[in-house]
């Protein structure tokens, strides 16, 4: 029942958005401000005959690889920094530097050093996201419960089972926060990186449409991208969050 009300509200707010868009485009009456109908038709056409799926796939692959790399490396570094003062001292300046270095600078530098390659693109996205994961997981690892660690040790659970059942569940909320903020960040950076130095992907397509002043395609590609982001949020992150919070009262 609550779900149905929520769904109705969502549909209503989408309708408001569509009506406003349609009205604005009629009022502007310009090739540069297409209405929803034209854009949706272009979207369908591009999906079937154009390069939309290819570009979307290329972008998603980059997002997936960079996200995984940043989460894994960032988690390991974050935990290591929380546990060892020496490692923390050694790496902290690097983390602070990366945290404050604009993603654009990282991307340009990597393209100069590694050429306009896939490795440079993925590396730039990974490096932009890495420091936030490190900082979040370091914070999480610092709050690990020593009492539970002692319990695991006294019952001789072993390294793997302790990690799997005692340590990682405590880090899960931090991992989730890092995933969330990280994804939001990556979605934005990946387009910039593609625009600067890749021959495919949504970012590259946006650049082409900009040069052609092809606003219909531009908005169609952007909408497809937003749809995927929302699907990831509703289809993966939110169910995961609910599952992880199951035991909370």
């Amino acid at each position, binding site marked *: 029942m609550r779900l149905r009300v929520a769904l109705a509200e969502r549909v209503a707010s989408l309708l408001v958005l569509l009506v406003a868009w349609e009205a604005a485009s009629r009022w502007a009456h310009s090739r540069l401000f297409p209405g929803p109908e034209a854009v949706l038709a272009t979207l369908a056409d591009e999906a079937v005959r154009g390069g939309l799926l290819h570009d979307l796939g290329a972008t998603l692959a980059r997002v997936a690889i960079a996200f995984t790399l940043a989460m894994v490396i960032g988690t390991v570094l974050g935990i290591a920094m929380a546990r060892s003062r020496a490692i923390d001292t050694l790496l902290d300046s690097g983390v602070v530097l990366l945290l404050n270095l604009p993603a654009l600078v990282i991307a340009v530098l990597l393209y100069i050093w590694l050429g306009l390659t896939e490795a440079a693109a993925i590396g730039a996205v990974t490096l932009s996201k890495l420091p936030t994961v490190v900082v979040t997981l370091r914070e999480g690892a610092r709050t690990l419960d020593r009492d539970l660690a*002692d319990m695991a040790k*006294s*019952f001789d659970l072993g390294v793997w089972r302790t990690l799997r059942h005692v340590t990682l569940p405590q880090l899960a909320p931090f991992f989730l926060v890092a995933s969330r903020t990280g994804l939001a960040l990556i979605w934005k950076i990946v387009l910039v990186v593609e625009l600067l130095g890749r021959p495919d992907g949504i970012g590259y397509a946006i650049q082409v449409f900009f040069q052609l002043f092809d606003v219909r395609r531009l908005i169609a590609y952007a909408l497809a991208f937003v749809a995927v982001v929302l699907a990831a949020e509703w289809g993966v992150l939110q169910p995961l969050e609910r599952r992880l919070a199951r035991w909370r009262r």
Partner: protein
Amino acid sequence: MAPVTVAITVAIDEKRYSGRAGVGPVTALRGLRAQIGPSEFCVVTGPSGCGKTTLLNIIAGLDRDFTGSLSFAPSDHGAPRIGYVFQSPRLLPWRTVRGNVALVQPRADRAGLDELLADVEMAAMADAYPAQLSGGMARRAALARAFAIAPDLLLMDEPFLSLDAAAADRLRSLLLRLVTARPATVLFVTHDLAEAVALADRILVLSPAPGRVVAEMPIALARTERDDPDTLSALRAELARLAGHPIEPRIQRK
């Protein structure tokens, strides 16, 4: 596999905590000698801060930073299986009661687990998460977890603290039933003399920090005769004389 109850010989020369910010170094234990026999129910008591928990952590192998020795017999049996019941239940909040107990004994079959949970009167709550349990239930679950590994040695650190008197009484009788059915050597820490007398085969009294054993007294009374107030105050006076310091009266609980 039936547990082989162990005997313990403790000879701790010194256990020091190095100081941290704002706290100087502390010597928690010094010259502590104790023998605990196989299947003995040994209760350790003493003033606050005398190193009772430290002693348990050393025996559990959680703390190896001490001088002295610690040995278990029979030694050919390998390291003894130790069930530790902590002062707080220390259950994993993201696992159910059954999941918490199963974690320490992954090879246990479901029937064995169910039987154990029934023994601690937690069968109905087997699928509840710790946040849904009362204090007494959480302690039953912790007790079941300790017994799940069929321990040779059971270490208990004021496990019934902060329960109301009736609940603590019920858990004490439950513990005695469990130990009868599933024999283990027990080392039980409490600062409550009435609790010590109710449970112990033998009571060890530690001195104020740095802790060492200053008195010991076997309790030969039948368990039914142990809650008599006169007996209790006589024992308290005797222990205080042996220990050379007053024994804290029973904490009044509401």
